[in-house]
Structures are given as C-alpha cells and as structure tokens.
C-alpha cells in the first residue's frame, strides 16, 4: 500500500506540479519545492519497502503484464531515484536564485518557463526509472527529450538555439530507432514487459536487429562516443542548472534503459563480443573526451567534454558485469560511479554558473584572479574534481575501485589501463581550471558577488560527491535487491 | 448479388467516370481557372455518386444521414476553396485563358 502511493507520487507529484507551475507561473519555485518534498517522502516510503520486502511491483490499473503496464522498483531503480531527487533538489534551490538575478523581462520569462519544464524533466526521469515496460519507456524518453531540449533553448542565445535544434534532431531520431526496435520486439514476443521478455526472448535475427536498433538509439541519447557530438555544445550553452541536470541525469536515463535491456530483458543476447564492443566504445569515449577537455577554451565546454569522457566509464560496466565472477563488483562499481559522476558534475556545472555569474565569462585563460575571490565555489569545484579524478576517498574512487577490482579479478587488464590513463587525463583537465584559482593577478577586476545560496548548493553537491564514497557500502547493498542475474 | 448491389456497382462506375473526367481535366486543361472548374465540378458529382452508392449499402438510416452530411460538407468546402483560389489568382493578375496564344 505504501509502495503504491510511493510509485504514484514519485511520478504524478512532479507531473502535476509541472502543470500547476504552468498555470501559476509566479508560483514556480514554491510548486517545485512542494514537489521536492512530496517526492522525498515518497522515496523514503519506497526505499523502506524495498529494503524490507525486496523488489516492489505496481500493476497499473490492476491489470498485469503483458496486457497492462507494470511499474517496478528494485535497488537500481531506487538508487537512480535517489540521485535524481538529490540533484533535482539542489537544482531547485539553486535556480530559485539563478533565474532571478537580472531583473529584465527576458530573465523573468526564463524563470516562468524554467519551472514547468524542469518539473516535467523530473517527472520523466522518475517515470523512466520506475517503468518496467519498454513501450512506456519510449513515452518517458520522449517526455525527457522534449523537456531537455526546451530547457537548453531557454538560454535563448544563438549557440544555444542551434545546439538545441541539433539535440532535438538527434533525440527524436534516436527515439524512433528505439520505437522501431520496440515494434519488432512486440511482433516477435507479443509483450513489451521487461520481465516477461526475459523469459521469452531467444536469440534470433529479429531480436538482434530489434536490439541493435534500440541500442543505437539509446547510445545516441546517452552520448556514447562516437555519437557524442551533440552533447558538448548543448550542455555547454544551456543555463547552468540545466547543464547540471542534463549531464548528471538525462544522459543517464538512456544508459539505465540500456542496462535494463541488456542485463534483464535480453540477457540471453548479451554475449561477450557485444560486451567488449560496449567496453571498447566506452574506452574510446574516455580517451577522446578527456583529450578534448584538455583543449577547450571555455570552462563549460571543458566540463561538457568531461561528461563525454566520464560516460565512457559507465560502459565499462558491460564487459565487466556480464561475467559471473566479480560481475556484481563491476555492477555496483559502475552504478556507484554513475551516482558519483552525477553529484560531481552537478557541482561542477553549478560552480561554472557561479563563475560565469561572477566574472561575466568563462574563458579559462582569463579566469586567473577571479576564482580566488569566490573561494567557496572554487572549493566546490576542487572537491568535485577529486571525485572526477577518482581520488580517494571520493565516491568516484569507490566506483573506480570496484571496476578496477572486477577487471583484475577477470583478468581483463586492458580496462585497467584505460581507467588509470583516464584518471590522469581527468586530473590534467581539472587542474587546468584549478591552477587559475592560485594564479595571482595584480589587477583583478572586482567580480560580481554571488548569491550565497548558489555557492552553498554547489558546495553541498561537491561534498556529497566526496562524502558519498565513505558510505558507498550502503548503495552496494541496496543494489543487491533485485540484481538482474542469479 | 442482389439488385441493390447491381445499382451500387453502376453508381460507382458513374462516380469513377466523373472522377476520371475531373482528373483528365485537371491535367489537360490550359489554365488555372478551367482546371479548378474541372476539379471541383466533376469531383463533386463523382463524390455524389459514390455517396449514393454507399448509401444503398448502409446498415442504418443514421449511416445514410452521415454519408449525406459528408457530401454536403465536402461540397461546401470545395466550393469555398475553389472560390478562394480563383479569387486570389485573379487578384494577383493571373490572366484567364481565352483560346488565343499571347
């Protein structure tokens, strides 16, 4: 009973809030705060049920799969919901001030539309993480994609509009690829339920093609190399809180579906060769993204390319988690890494927003002398950087450690090399920025003061990114609930 | 095959004739105005025959009524649209064909 309400409120809470924020544009922040409260409560209820009673299933409408839609909450889903909630909460606090800073018509307009769009995004994510139905996942993907594109375009400048347009094309085409895959799957198996598919799906040409289509679409949405091209401009040109949401959460949504497909519904098709291909793309993403981040002129572009790189780590989970031996190590490692990256990236983009706010630009070479004036923001950036590099005891380290251990256990040492090189590259690009904080510039212009709530929110996320590593045992235990393989 | 089916067939053939005529007119007539003429007039009659044919096959009076409604609506719409296009063309100075080459 509690679980039912949790399911309902986690999705309908933000959804209704989005509608209300649209009807009452001036009450946006209040509505979002209320939604945050409701989802937090619902999440607590859900996590207690999951910890006590295992995987929770909600049969919507009282029907059950294959005819109806099932919602499902296992450890993985609960973890993703937690990350979503934390980051959305931080973004709510941050944006309450961010969009109010300039008192012109343009920013007033932006604030009015930010809230409903943001709440839609949140609802879409929650719905996505709870869904156990591949067609329903398509609808949530569209909801997610539209909200994300509209949020990017909210920045309103030329580059933002162009990158939003490109993002929309990629997102829509990817959704259609996914949907075509769903059609083929339905034609073959007569069900779109993840659990039932796991029993019904047998390797065969149709399902191979279907899965390839869905995977292709999702990889484009998850911006895995070489389908990452749309990400850096979109993430770099969006308003800061939006960039945080996109990098931390939106791309993870597609990744989450990939996990559900390859490790649950179609686990019989998850062969070592496929897994190695995923891993290889992930490795390429790590190297390519990091190398590009080293040469970006602007802070936000650097952070965006870092996202491209860090997403690569997530895909190392594929070759490592498929094995029985040490598989769970990699599984929990990859997902803890995901949470770590989400928190760290939020902190980084929010900080980048702060710096942009203080300096009026984010050209890295001119940041000397500005970053040491807002020390809290710099500190936040540094802490988040620790987690990105994977220095202990941050959560990034916890994730990397588990992945490393898994590859050592399985003798797949090539991933070890990639991960370590990736860490060093991450250190290099993080230090590119932090060095500016220590540069003494004789005639530093006085920066624009940053509202405290914006600084402290960024710092809180950074502290979370590090501190989460100290309690990483808890998510690892949580992830055992409903782990997809025996 | 009943007598009703036979009449339906004949009506449909008539409809087909008018549609073909309309289409030929659309393709072969020399200018916009005469093409409009062919399209709207012939097609409306063709549609009328088709509707009649379907009315004979209808299961209930309400279906007959709906079919009739469709015809009336299409008639009104195509008349209006035809008028609008012709009017606009005239306004923009598209000269009607007079048989003499310019």
């Amino acid at each position: 009973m509690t679980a039912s309400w949790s399911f309902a409120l986690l999705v309908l809470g933000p959804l209704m809030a989005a509608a209300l924020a649209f009807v009452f544009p001036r009450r946006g922040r209040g509505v979002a705060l209320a939604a945050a409260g409701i989802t937090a409560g619902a999440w607590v209820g859900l996590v207690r049920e999951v910890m006590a009673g295992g995987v929770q299933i909600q049969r919507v409408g009282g029907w059950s799969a294959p005819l109806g839609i099932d919602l499902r909450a296992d450890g993985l889903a609960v973890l993703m919901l937690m990350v979503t909630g934390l980051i959305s909460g931080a973004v709510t606090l941050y944006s309450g001030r961010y969009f109010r800073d300039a008192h012109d018509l343009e920013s007033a307009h932006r604030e009015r539309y930010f809230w409903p769009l943001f709440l839609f995004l949140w609802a879409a994510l929650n719905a996505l993480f709870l869904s156990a139905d591949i067609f329903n996942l398509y609808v949530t993907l569209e909801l997610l994609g539209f909200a994300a594109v509209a949020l990017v375009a909210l920045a309103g400048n030329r580059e933002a509009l162009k990158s939003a347009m490109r993002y929309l094309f990629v997102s829509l085409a990817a959704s259609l690829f996914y949907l075509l895959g769903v059609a083929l799957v339905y034609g073959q198996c007569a069900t779109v339920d993840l659990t039932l598919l796991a029993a019904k799906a047998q390797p065969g040409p149709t399902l191979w093609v279907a899965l390839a289509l869905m995977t292709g679409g999702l990889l484009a949405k998850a911006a895995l190399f070489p389908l990452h091209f749309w990400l850096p401009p979109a993430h770099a040109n969006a308003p800061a809180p939006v960039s945080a949401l996109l990098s931390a959460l939106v791309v993870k949504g597609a990744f989450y579906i990939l996990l559900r497909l390859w490790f649950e519904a179609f686990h019989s098709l998850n062969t070592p060769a496929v897994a190695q291909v995923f891993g290889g793309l992930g490795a390429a993403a790590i190297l390519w993204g990091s190398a590009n981040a080293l040469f970006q002129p602007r802070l936000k572009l650097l952070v965006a390319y870092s996202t491209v790189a860090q997403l690569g780590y997530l895909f190392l989970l594929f070759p490592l988690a498929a094995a029985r031996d040490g598989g769970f190590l990699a599984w929990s490692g990859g997902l803890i890494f995901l949470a770590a990256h989400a928190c760290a990236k939020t902190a980084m983009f929010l900080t980048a927003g702060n710096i942009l706010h203080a300096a009026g630009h984010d050209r890295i070479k001119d940041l000397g002398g500005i970053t040491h004036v807002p020390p809290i923001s710099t500190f936040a950036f540094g802490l988040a950087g620790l987690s990105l590099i994977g220095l202990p005891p941050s959560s990034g380290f916890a994730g990397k450690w588990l992945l490393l251990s898994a590859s050592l256990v399985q003798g797949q040492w090539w991933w070890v090399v990639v991960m370590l090189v990736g860490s060093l590259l991450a250190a290099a690009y993080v230090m590119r920025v932090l060095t500016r904080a220590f540069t003494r510039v004789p005639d530093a212009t006085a920066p624009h003061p940053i509202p405290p709530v914006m600084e402290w929110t960024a710092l809180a996320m950074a502290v979370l990114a590090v501190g989460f590593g100290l309690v990483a045992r808890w998510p690892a235990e949580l992830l055992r609930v409903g782990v997809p393989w025996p | 095959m009943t007598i009703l089916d036979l009449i339906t067939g004949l009506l449909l053939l008539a409809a087909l004739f008018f549609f073909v005529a309309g289409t030929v007119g659309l393709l072969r007539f020399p200018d916009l105005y005469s093409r409009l003429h062919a399209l709207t007039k012939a097609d409306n009659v063709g549609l009328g025959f088709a509707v009649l044919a379907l009315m004979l096959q209808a299961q209930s009076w309400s279906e007959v009524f709906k079919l009739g409604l469709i015809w009336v609506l299409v008639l009104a719409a195509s008349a209006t649209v035809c008028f609008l296009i012709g009017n606009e063309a005239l306004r923009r100075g598209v000269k009607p064909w007079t048989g003499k080459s310019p």
Partner: protein
Amino acid sequence: MSIHALTLLGILFSSFLTGLVIFFLKEESHRLRTWLNMLGAGLKLVLVAALLWGVHEGKDYSWSFEFLPGLQLALGADANSVLFVTLSTVLWFWTTLYAVGYLEDSPHRSRFFGFFSLCVTATTGIALSANLITFLIFYELLTVSTYPLVVHRGTPDALRGGRIYLTYTLIGGTVLLLAVAWFSRLAGPVAFKERGVIEALMATHRGELQLLFFLFVLGIGVKAAIVPLHGWLPKAMVAPAPVSSLLHAVAVVKAGAFGIVRIVYDLYGVENAAKLGLLPPLAVAASVTIIYGSVRAVFQDELKKRLAYSTVSQVSYIVLGTAILGPLATIGGLVHLVHQGIMKITLFFGAGNYAETLGIHRVSEMNGVGRRMPLTTAAFTVAALGMIGVPPLAGYVSKWYLKKGAITAGDEWVALVLAGSSLLNAAYFLPILYRAWFLAPPKTWPREHPFGKWETHWMLLAAPLVTAALVVWAGVFAESSFSPLAWVKLIAAREYGP
C-alpha cells in the same frame, strides 16, 4: 566506541576540523586563526602523547569502518605508526608556530592554514593506516592537500613547480592505486602486520609479487624522491619556507619513506622480501640516490635547492636501511626517519629565516651571516653537523647503525656508499658554515626586514632552536629509554621476532 578508537580519531580530527573551520574564516581574523591552529596542534600533541604511552603499555588501538563491501577504512597504532605520528605531530606544532610568524602579512592565510592542517591530517592518517587501502586514501589526500601549499605564492614559477609536483605524484599515485588493487585481488583486503602477510602466496605467486613490489616502489618512490623519480622535489622549492620544511621533514618525502618501510616490513615482511630477491635492487636504487643527491647538492648555489638535493640523498638512507636484512640496519633506517626529520626541518627553518630577515637566498650571499643572526646560525650549524654525521649528534647514530647493519649483512659496499656520502655531505655543508661564521659580512644585506629586539621574529626563532635542541638530544641521549632509538629498537625486535 572505545576510548582508544576515539584517541585515534581525535588525532585525525584535531587537525582536520581546525582545517575546515579555518578555511571559512575571514582573512582578517588573524588572532582567532592563530589560536585555532595552536589549539589543534596542542590537542594533537596531547593525544599523541597518550597514544605513545598506550602503545608502549601494549594497549590495542584500532578502529575500522566498512565503506565499501569488504573494504575497511582501518586505523590502528603499532610501533611503526607511533614513531611516525609522533615525529609529525611534534614537528607540526613547531612548524605551525613558525608559519604564523613567517606569513604574518601575506595574503590568503586562511587558505594556507586550511590546507596546512589538511596536509598534517593526511600525514597522521598515513601513519595510523592499518591497511593498504587506508594508506592509499591518505596518501592521495596528502598529494591533494600539499599542491595548494606548493603553489601558494601564485607566481608563474610556483605554478610551474606545482604542476611538476602534481604530475609526478599523481602518476605515482595511479601506479600505487594499481598496485593496491592488484595486491588486494591477490591477498584480499589485508591489514598491515609485522613480518608481512604474504606467507601463503610466496610459493604460488612469486613473479606477481615481485612485479607488485616494483609497482609499489615505483608508486611510493615518487614521494620518497628515489632517483630517477626525484625530479619534482627541487622544483617544489618555490613554496614558502614552512611548506618546504614540512614537505621535506615531515609530510611528503617522509610519507614516501614511511610507505616503503610499511611495504617492506608490514606487507611483505623483510624476510619474505629477501627471499623474493627484492632487497638488493632496492638497496642499489637507494645507494644511487644517496650519491647522486649529494653530488648534485654540492653544485647548487641556491640554498634551498642545496637542501632539497640533500633531502633526496638523506631520505634514501631510510630506504637503504629497509633494504638491508637484519635488525641493525632496520634500526639505522627507521631512526633516520626521525633524525633526518628534525635535522632537515631545522635547516629549512634556518634557510627561511635568512630569506625572510635578510633576503638571502644563495649560499654565496651568506658571508658573515653568523654574526648578524647568531642563534639561527647556531641551530643551522648543529643540524648541518648532524647531517654530516658528526658525533654525538643525531645523524651519527643513524649512520653508525646503518654501517654496522650493512657489514653484518655482508653488504660491505654499502659502508663505502655511506662513507662517500658523508664526505659529500661535508663538502656541501662545511663551506656554508665557514662562510657564515668566518667570512666578513657585507655592508648591506640583499633585503633586510627588521623584527624588533631579536635577530628576527620570536616565532621564527623559537622553532629552529627547539628542533636543534632535539637534534642534540636525539644524539646525546640515544641510549636512554626516552629517545627515538629506544623506540626503534622496540620495532626492530617486533619485526624480527624472538
């Protein structure tokens, strides 16, 4: 949680929390910051004293927390850790005092002291780590918290030095991470233990263990500045004097040396390491470093650079001690951990005083400085003589044990290395002392900065005097039961067993 566990955590948090609070203090609240600093340092000193007593009494200190499945964040105190933690705490106290005086009017003091405290937290954490993963955590934390100190001045030079420092240490850290992960996969998440934990693997994984040892030394050797991994150390001299002192005497270099001690004694076990044939290469590397560092030091005119190369050389005495089988060499190496610390910190304090008071940065500018600043120069002299190994100062004790140990173990060539190094030490220290005491002072000093009635600020003066006194004490009273030597003998006894 027992009182013992609380003591361990208290030692860490006494500096960690002060560091955090200081971070967010206003730049102007000078007095509060100083008080906090001294309070933290004092509290830590008290706690360490309690720990010292407890360990001596054979009490069991341990605390652990499972932060990843099967992975413990574990603190503990054995004789080895107490040795290092005591050294760093004592020296931190005096360095803090010194730093307060040194940085009196410079900007960004909150940032400086914040990282300063974090740095010491990391060092004590390294000392108190009870297993490999905890060691790794604090080792990396040390890297991160020292970087801001190195680049503190913000000049292009400082930034370059910082970049080089970070490049070396991060790559080293990555190698260490690999080694730790690999080792954990082989042996499981093991805790440090005297005489090592690899007994069971010796027969089956010989090659892997050898490779791992190489990786460990490579990773940790960066911080211990073993040639050719020493490149960062002279460059990092751009940091303010208190930082250099801490870096060389306590934190970074010492953490590296201590790490090698840990690996050899408490992870592999020195006897196992000998059986695997790992010690001779390590001894050779250490010897090369000793000679190379000394030779380079002779040709440096910049005082801090000369001291830096001297550090490169001296730290490898510790490594050398661990690389020779037998209790005597062990004693020599470990006691040098302490002795080198107090001697080198004194030297850096002295160098800092010269720079801060008179603007002297080069050896060639030091003519007659002994007459202008007699107390500082006296302390400097004591430490320099100790370094050379003049009896009865601290350096003599360590070198004597090392030599004895090498001969006992049958490695006579090591004695030659030691002798050569002592000669070189003399070659680069004695000219300084000669200039300082016996040459006439110039008419004007490069940049004089008067400090009232003493030859310099009292805080700057107190620290080197105290540490110089320690140098004398450690040498003269070496055989008493309250000396570093006594404690080191305890360790050696435990390591080699009855």
